């Protein structure tokens, strides 16, 4: 039993830190730190910098362009980049589609698509959820009817995160509506967003931002070779995708950075003639979440260690998802509380990094309330925390 990283791992950590100091654009890091809006260009730039270093696809096999990291190295990389306020790597190509293609894609698909993910030629988005199929994903209804060498797609996808930045979408579609079980008869298909018949419409979220979209498909023709794997076996690939990438599901590094940010704010806000951070009640709220996060770091490492020994931690990664998002939500909630009356004023333009108006109240105030509301999504999207609790219970109870 040893909680320390190995000397090699510590050397790697320094290497990552050094790289971040050198290459992470300070303007981007500052936006992340202060919760300002990131542009598509910010994300593309960071993507390219990582790719140049060969560190973009940490969990891809070396032969497909991965760096050959251990689980611990991936953890260190995720942790350090988040702490340094790097943007998250946009997951759809690198973390979601990539592994599916590597495991189930044809050689042609691998050769064509994987390099385009790495070099940024393709920005992928995810076509899973539908208006009637949220938690009950397998009840999806978008149809793909075979017509010669093509599928003809009709239906609607929703909650398509950053779909308005994407040129491609991977979709779950129903190829056999008569299948006995709803999990059968689903296929996994790659679609060019520029195909005729695709219409994308923004969904504005409660904080007034445009992050997610609806995507409508009307007689969209997709070549059959864009199907991944076998027809009607898409559910297998979809599940693989959902459970594959769990190194960073708890978002530890991001929460550590958010806690630092909160602490800074709580040290500046005054209450009762002393910094809010010294107020016993607020200090207790912060200490509770700090301790929970310290515990979570070790829980996360324990799960990773088990996984590297070949464990298959489905219930455990659901735990990481639940508590990881709860901690992050609690941190944004405390940051909102810390602001006091200044949570209420809202100047949307102040979320742009090049806004140069005088701030209302303290300069860190502008994005806080909106960020709190936006982060309510963490327990809803990516498999709601209710779904995760059911997975844990069913795994442990075996009922």
């Amino acid at each position: 039993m040893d909680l320390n990283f190995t000397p090699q791992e510590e050397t790697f950590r320094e290497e990552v830190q050094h790289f971040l100091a050198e290459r992470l654009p300070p303007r981007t890091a500052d936006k992340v730190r202060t919760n300002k809006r990131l542009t598509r260009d910010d994300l593309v730039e960071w993507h390219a910098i990582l790719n140049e270093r060969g560190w973009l696809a940490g969990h891809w096999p070396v032969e497909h362009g991965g760096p050959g990291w251990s689980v611990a190295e991936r953890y260190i990389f995720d942790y350090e980049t988040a702490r340094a306020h790097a943007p998250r790597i946009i997951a759809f190509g690198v973390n979601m589609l990539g592994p599916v293609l590597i495991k189930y894609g044809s050689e042609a698909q691998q050769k064509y698509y994987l390099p385009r993910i790495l070099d940024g030629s393709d920005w992928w988005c995810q076509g899973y959820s539908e208006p009637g199929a949220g938690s009950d994903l397998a009840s999806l209804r978008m149809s793909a009817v075979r017509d010669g060498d093509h599928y003809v797609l009709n239906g609607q996808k929703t909650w398509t995160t950053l779909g308005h930045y994407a040129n491609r979408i991977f979709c779950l579609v129903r190829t056999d509506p008569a299948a006995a079980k709803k999990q059968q008869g689903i296929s996994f298909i790659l679609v060019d967003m520029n195909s005729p018949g695709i219409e994308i419409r923004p969904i504005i979220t409660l904080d007034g931002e445009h992050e997610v979209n609806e995507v409508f498909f009307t007689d969209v023709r997709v070549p059959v070779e864009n199907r991944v794997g076998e027809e009607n076996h898409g559910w297998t690939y979809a599940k693989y995708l959902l459970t594959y990438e769990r190194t960073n599901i708890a978002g530890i590094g991001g929460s550590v950075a958010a806690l630092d940010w909160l602490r800074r704010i709580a040290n500046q806000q005054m209450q009762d003639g002393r910094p809010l951070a010294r107020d016993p009640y607020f200090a207790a709220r912060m200490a509770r979440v700090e301790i929970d996060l310290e515990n979570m770091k070790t829980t996360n490492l324990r799960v990773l260690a088990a996984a590297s020994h070949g464990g298959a931690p489905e219930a455990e990664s659901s735990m990481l998802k639940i508590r990881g998002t709860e901690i992050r939500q609690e941190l944004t909630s405390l940051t909102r509380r810390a602001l006091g009356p200044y949570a209420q004023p809202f100047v949307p333009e102040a979320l742009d990094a090049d806004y140069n108006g005088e701030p209302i109240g303290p300069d860190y105030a502008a994005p806080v309330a909106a960020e709190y509301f936006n982060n309510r999504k963490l327990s809803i999207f990516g498999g709601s925390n209710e779904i995760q609790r059911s997975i844990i219970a069913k795994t442990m109870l075996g009922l």
Partner: protein
Amino acid sequence: MDFDLTDDRRMLADTLGRYLGDRYGFSERTRIAGSEEGFSRTSWQDLAGLGVIGALFGEAAGGYGGAGFDLHTVFEQLGRSLVVEPFLGTLLAGKVLEAAGGQQALLDEVIAGTRLVTAALYEAEGRYDPLHVGTRATAREGGYVLTGGKAVVPQLAAADVILLSAKLEDGLALFLLPRSAPGVTIREYGFVEGGRGGELLLQDVVLDADARIGAGHSAQELIEHAVAAGIVALASEAVGIMEFARDATLDYLRTRTQFGVPIGKFQALQHRMATVLLEIEQARSATINAAASLGGDRLSRERAVSAAKFTIGRVGTLVAEEAIQMHGGIGMTWELPLPHYAKRLTMIDHQLGDEDYHLVRYIRLGEAAGAEAA
């Protein structure tokens, strides 16, 4: 022991509810909340005409009510329709004017809806404590000079007259400030939940002697009294919002199907919803206790008021978060009314003192009560 509204209040609730239902529907509300002024002068005139502003004040002050349960009746309806009209500033300033006396002409105009007032009682350094006042007033011949600033004042830019607190040499004092007075700077902005407010800056603002009000009273007491009324109002607004959120969520649980059944069939959601329902009843009870306390002695009143604001803060967060969570993705969208109710409910905790502030205050008042009893 009687938990029914009087006939007068029931009529007021019905009239107000009907007006808001007809003229202040959600899309109209959205338009108004995002408009340049952040409220509707037409609606305000209508509401004044219906006697809604008058209901906030006693008959001696030209109103038609003014008791805790009058505020409760009005603000619960305002909450249900998520109204962004300038009621809070009107209530806070008006309650001071009513208690201080000598400003009947202004109050008449306020009640008639022809002049707008607001109250600038909080400062950036004081956070939630209205008795922490850094703004200074210096007496000089024939009047006063004021310098300082006030934070997050509701509907500041639209107010004709601003009630504010300042420190005189011999203690706290209250003043009426015309918005257009020289030396006054206003930085206005929208609120995250809709409606508008602003920062008030005073640089050597010269006021006549009669701008000072309530000189015969304790300014602390006037402020405390007005804030107590404000808390009853916010708590009641919160209860109205919670009831909307409850109904919307129950409806969604009944109609949204997943896995072939309405999601309200899922026991985990059922049991959490049962807790939400129970907590809303507790929040309503806390609000009733506070409304009833407004006429009582200071210590009981202030304890009941802090208990209510604490409860509303705690339950409000629960209701807002659970309602969004149970709605799932759709609960995150701008287009649905529910999340806007959730946002306002959350922001009520940021006005007139939050959950933690009032828990501490409740404890301290309890110690004071214990010391008094001993």
